[in-house]
């Protein structure tokens, strides 16, 4: 940086003053969150990240503010608004905003950035595919161990299937979290019933509920009696097909029993990323330990992933909840690898 940005300087001072325990004017950390495209009340990433940011702000005695992004082109300027207003911590939500967050972190070393669901990859040069470049000291990606969450969902599916056939519909086969969820799911189901058959289809589309419905319908006609969706809006069609055929559906990312009230009757559980927990904890980490960098994995060891409460099953099959608990413990201790 050739010229020191005066705003950045002020933010550094602000952070120094708070981390020394002396309250700045206005009191506490100023925490800003920039959402992914869409709405704040999306019952998914934006909403739960925001709850986590608010929890974090409360825990550290700070204030929280949010900007809702309307368009991909607005990411940069939304982040800049918080930079200009001398915020101490900026949290950005979603994989897509990662590039702009990285640039902002490099330009504003005095501000702490957290990227939810962003795996930070800084290539050392144009040919580097292994992310050997240096991640800025003030930017931490909050990533999740999807395979572990998928594994827990797989345990549920393997336990409740009567036909011995289960299905999974993925949004895209080139999005690693989607693939990880499904791999974990397959292994989880096989840990319960070693001969279970898992039908997998990638629709290569996150926004086509009719395709999701067609996929699930085909799986169900093949005998699958549990379907797991990892496909965004496409997945709503998957769960719809499950409801229509009176078989079980498993949700993803958040507790979809709550987020999709239309489909409550057939959702048995969801493979969850605990976004709220992850965002809140990140802010506390910053307050307690200062600058955070690199990729921080939320997994079984820090309650970063999990399975939502079992719904609609009465009684819950004997031992199911124990199996989930045991698997979580084993993943925590490292004894159990989901993939």
């Amino acid at each position: 940086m050739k010229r020191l940005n005066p705003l950045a300087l002020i933010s550094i001072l602000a952070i120094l003053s708070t981390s020394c325990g002396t309250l700045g004017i206005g009191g506490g950390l100023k925490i800003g969150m920039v959402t992914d495209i869409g709405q704040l009340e999306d019952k998914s990433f934006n909403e739960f990240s925001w709850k986590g940011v608010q929890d974090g702000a409360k825990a550290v005695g700070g204030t929280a503010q949010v900007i809702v992004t309307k368009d991909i082109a607005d990411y940069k300027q939304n982040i800049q608004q918080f930079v200009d207003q001398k915020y101490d911590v900026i949290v950005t939500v979603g994989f897509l905003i990662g590039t702009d967050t990285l640039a902002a972190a490099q330009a504003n070393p005095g501000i702490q950035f957290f990227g939810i669901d962003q795996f930070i990859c800084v290539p050392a040069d144009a040919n580097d595919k292994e992310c050997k470049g240096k991640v800025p000291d003030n930017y931490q990606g909050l990533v999740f161990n999807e395979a572990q969450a998928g594994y827990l969902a797989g345990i549920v599916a393997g336990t409740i299937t009567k036909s011995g056939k289960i299905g999974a519909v993925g949004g895209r086969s080139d999005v690693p979290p989607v693939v990880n969820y499904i791999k974990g799911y397959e292994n989880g189901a096989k840990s319960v019933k070693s001969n279970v058959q898992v039908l997998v289809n990638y629709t290569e589309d996150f926004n086509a509920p009719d395709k999701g419905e067609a996929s699930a319908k085909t799986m169900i006609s093949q005998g699958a009696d549990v379907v797991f969706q990892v496909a965004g809006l496409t997945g709503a069609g998957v769960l719809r097909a499950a409801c229509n055929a009176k078989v079980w559906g498993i949700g993803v990312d958040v507790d979809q029993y709550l987020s999709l009230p239309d489909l409550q009757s057939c959702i048995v559980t969801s493979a969850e990323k605990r976004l709220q927990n992850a965002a809140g904890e990140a802010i506390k980490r910053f307050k307690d330990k200062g600058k955070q960098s690199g990729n921080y994995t939320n997994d079984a060891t820090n309650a970063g992933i999990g399975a939502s409460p079992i719904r609609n099953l009465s009684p819950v099959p004997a031992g199911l909840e124990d199996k989930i608990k045991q698997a979580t413990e084993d993943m925590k201790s490292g004894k159990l690898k989901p993939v």
Partner: protein
Amino acid sequence: MDLLAIPRLVFEFAVYLLTVLPDLLPIILALATPLALGALCGVLNERSGVVNIGIEGMMLMSAFFGYLTGFALHQTVGSAVAIWLGIAVAVGVGALLGLLHAWLSVSVRADQIIAGTMMNIAALGVTGYLNRLIITPSGRGGAGVIPPFRIPPELADLPVVGPILAMFLDQGPIAMSVIVFVLVLQFGLFRTRWGLRTRAVGEHPKAADTLGIDVFRQRYLNVILGGALAGLAGAFLTLESTGSFQNGMTGGRGFIALAAMIFGRWTPVGSFLGALLFGTATAFGVVVSVRPAEGDLGVILRSIPTFWYAALPYLLTVVILAGVVGRSVPPAADGVPYAKEGKA
């Protein structure tokens, strides 16, 4: 190199297609329904001489307002009634938007491409805004979906007849109604006075006018009817297929519908076949990974990235529009506003 390798693969592929047919057939119609209804909307519009690229927006608006009606009423009047009211509202909204498009294209003689584009952009904005304002904060669900009709299992399990019956009858009412609309419109367009007049104002409005046909009235009527069909397509998306509304959920179906219409050379039956073709391409992409083929064929089919299967309908669109099906000629006065002599 085994000389018989290729013929054997072709044979295996044919056998594979036959074995997966029972899985393919029941899902094709539902995938084709919004495309077919959109294409019929296009046929009605363009046959009378009005280009409508706003079908996408009409579908989206109808999908939203249909859903909103169900959402608002299902607790007071019950789900079933609310869904049917929602469908009626969706069709009504489609017809109203048709009226708007007719007014812009016929009376005001605005540029029809721009009018359609405006429709698409406005629909995205209006539905996105109202969705955020009304539906999402409530945290409530909608009225659900119309339960699909189920054929008795004894019939569905019949070896050959079962899947064919399932293709047409194991569906929701809107999907099934498509077949009726296609036949009625095909008959209407080529065998009735209304059809003759429609084609006349689409081919040569001046001649039609000279013979005493009210060009404006005929175009208004067709564009409004077309809008109602696009509205039904919207209702299908929210009230029969998914039971929820998502921003921008039409996802380009209004445009693929136009390709189906061109494939079908502006005829109802042809457009329907075009929509079925797109539906089949999508369905094949699904079935190929859920019921993989065996042997060498399986190895080959598995080695093709799933993206190619997902892209199949779009590749088909390109192939079709590039003229593989032969030259497809639009109605002569398509997109040309008509002005009475002395008034222009």
